[in-house]
């Protein structure tokens, strides 16, 4: 079963980098992806992210998200087709002149898809290559309260556990003759036999989890930094390049507006 959003132990370029550098990387890429309206630029940005993944030896893991991204792109394009019918009509999706496919809608859908693809993949690179403990420590240094920090960490940690548990519960209910109901109401009702045990088990687990966190002193004790994370040469070069790219991008955008 595919595990989503988990740290994978490897020795790659990004694995060796400082978590702070990687957070800066996500921010720069994110800002550019959100501000840009140019399809060629977004494609290039996506290419940069993929090359980064390749350099970090995690391309395969990052590409695992392709299915999700493709599914999203179909939804985005359908939504834009219905909501923003602008530009020239290329053809009609349904016979009788219904659902016109327009250039404006297509552009908007593709831009949205590219943005999300870039954001998801950049985030993937970050999560796959960063040990949660380093992340917690970095965020702590950036003065993010430890409670939020642990919340984020636990959310990531329990994704595969909940996936496995949901499957077990589903099987147990199937063995009791459970079937997904028909119609809207039936479907809603058939959620209970799986969701109720899943949520109840998670809640009783949360109690023990809270006690464990307190007893290990995550919230109260001071931490002894064992491995002082420093910005190494690759970090500095990378931060420099990213900073330059961001500055250049902002300058270019401003020039365009002024012109």
């Amino acid at each position: 079963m595919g595990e989503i959003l988990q740290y994978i132990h490897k020795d790659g370029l990004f694995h060796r980098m400082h978590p702070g550098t990687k957070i800066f990387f996500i921010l720069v890429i994110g800002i550019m992806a959100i501000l840009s309206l140019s399809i060629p630029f977004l494609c290039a940005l996506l290419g940069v992210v993929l090359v980064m993944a390749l350099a970090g030896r995690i391309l395969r893991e990052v590409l695992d998200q392709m299915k999700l991204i493709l599914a999203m792109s179909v939804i985005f394009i359908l939504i834009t087709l219905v909501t923003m019918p602008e530009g020239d009509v290329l053809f009609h999706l349904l016979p009788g002149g219904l659902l016109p496919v327009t250039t404006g809608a297509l552009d908007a859908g593709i831009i949205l898809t590219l943005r999300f693809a870039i954001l998801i993949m950049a985030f993937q690179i970050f999560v796959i290559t960063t040990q949660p403990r380093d992340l917690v420590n970095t965020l702590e240094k950036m003065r993010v309260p430890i409670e939020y920090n642990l919340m984020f960490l636990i959310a990531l940690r329990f994704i595969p556990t909940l996936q496995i548990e949901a499957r077990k519960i589903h099987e147990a209910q199937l063995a009791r003759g459970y079937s997904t109901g028909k119609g809207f109401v039936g479907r809603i009702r058939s959620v209970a036999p799986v969701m109720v045990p899943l949520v109840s088990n998670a809640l009783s687990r949360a109690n023990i989890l809270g006690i464990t966190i307190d007893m290990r002193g995550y919230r109260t004790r001071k931490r002894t930094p064992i491995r002082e994370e420093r910005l190494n040469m690759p970090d500095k070069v990378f931060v420099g390049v990213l900073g330059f790219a961001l500055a250049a991008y902002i300058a270019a955008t401003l020039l365009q507006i002024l012109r």
Partner: protein
Amino acid sequence: MITLEDVSYRYQRGGRDAVSGISLSVSPGECLMITGPSGAGKTTLCMAASGILEHEFGGEKRGRVTILGKDVREYPGLPEIASHVSVVFDDPEAQLIFTTVEEEILSALERSGLSPAEIGQRLASILEITRLAALKDRPPHALSGGQKQRVALAAALALGTDILILDEPTAELDEEGTASIVSVLRDLKAQGKTILLTEHKYSHFRDLVDRLVVMEGGRFRAIGTPCELITDRSVAEIVIPDFSGIRSSFPCRPHEGENPVISVRDLGFLYGDVPALAGVSLDVYPGEFVAIVGENGSGKTTLIKHFIGLLHATRGSVTVDGKDAKVTPVSELAHSVGLVFQNPDHMFFADTVAGEVMFGITNLGIPEPEAVLGEVLSRCRLSGARDLYPRWLSRGERQRLAIACVLAMQPKVIVLDEPTTGLDGKESREVMEILRQLQAEGRAIVMVTHNHEMARECADRVVTMRAGRIVSDTRNGA
């Protein structure tokens, strides 16, 4: 090290006292084991002794608890108590927060106030004592139950406390996993740690335990050295499961000449490209009690999931009650085969015990639902629990409810995965008696277990699996 003076506690949700008038004193270096039926108050006792009850729970508390001579109320909070006492709970999943084994231990070590050099040493020694060095880069979901429990223990050891409290550390583990925990605890005891543990598997911990406490209904039934206690028969049957005579007290009719109700032919199954079953053939006849034994990962659970169509054979065939399990939907096979999973908490969602049993009855359209409900509840000794909330029942009652839910669907074969997990000797025997009774009425029983003794004493036939194959299939003498 720890004393309890006349401690009573009642949970906020009400009911009777979970523990009532308990007094206990734990000496340095001692290993004290608490046993007794599920719902006897063992976990509550752990929570009381570690100060968790005082600092984390509401409800009604009486009496006094001290840790190292100081009243738990005088400690400002759990983190301060945690410098003296470490607690490991029965659900290891809830105690693993980080995403690799090493991180889990390091994250706790980092907060212990040691210097980086000392942290490195302590990490190495903890990895060694808990036998986790080879697994240090694994994520929690890629570990077995025994390994997860050892990681939880390792993280607890990181704080270097002298007192360890463990609540059923081996409940979900097989023989191998249990043995690994026992040997870790033996080393820790040799180091001089004080250990308080609740357990059902006394026989595994025999040479470790200095004093034994048997609890029942929130009180101490008996306390003393194990040798003293087990001379009393009524205490011994709780501490050490005794299945003798079960088989002869429920005579079963011979099944020769009948068609098998489950017939497995040359079954092969791959998880991805890992072979989980390789060429398994097995016939189960009506009125037969078959035990399937083997270590974790030997393919037992994978095999029984084929009986009800949750998994489909990659090779070979499975025929259930004349139906091809590969093409028949699960809901149809559920008429013939009832599957009771290991963890009953994976199935309960209704507000009452009765509602829980009715779920299967309604799904399959069983006639005369009310009569069936009453009958299965009385059979599983739950008539008095009809309107209770399933999740508040004791583990023993929940296990029997899981059986009742499946029984209500009136299958010809009942398949159970580890039906005595978390039960004491008496409760385990109760479950076995229910199963023998069902068998005597002509149903086939297939039980997956790690417990060889129980398999030998209760089943007619013991099938042993190893690495996805059946390595032996023997018939027990009557």
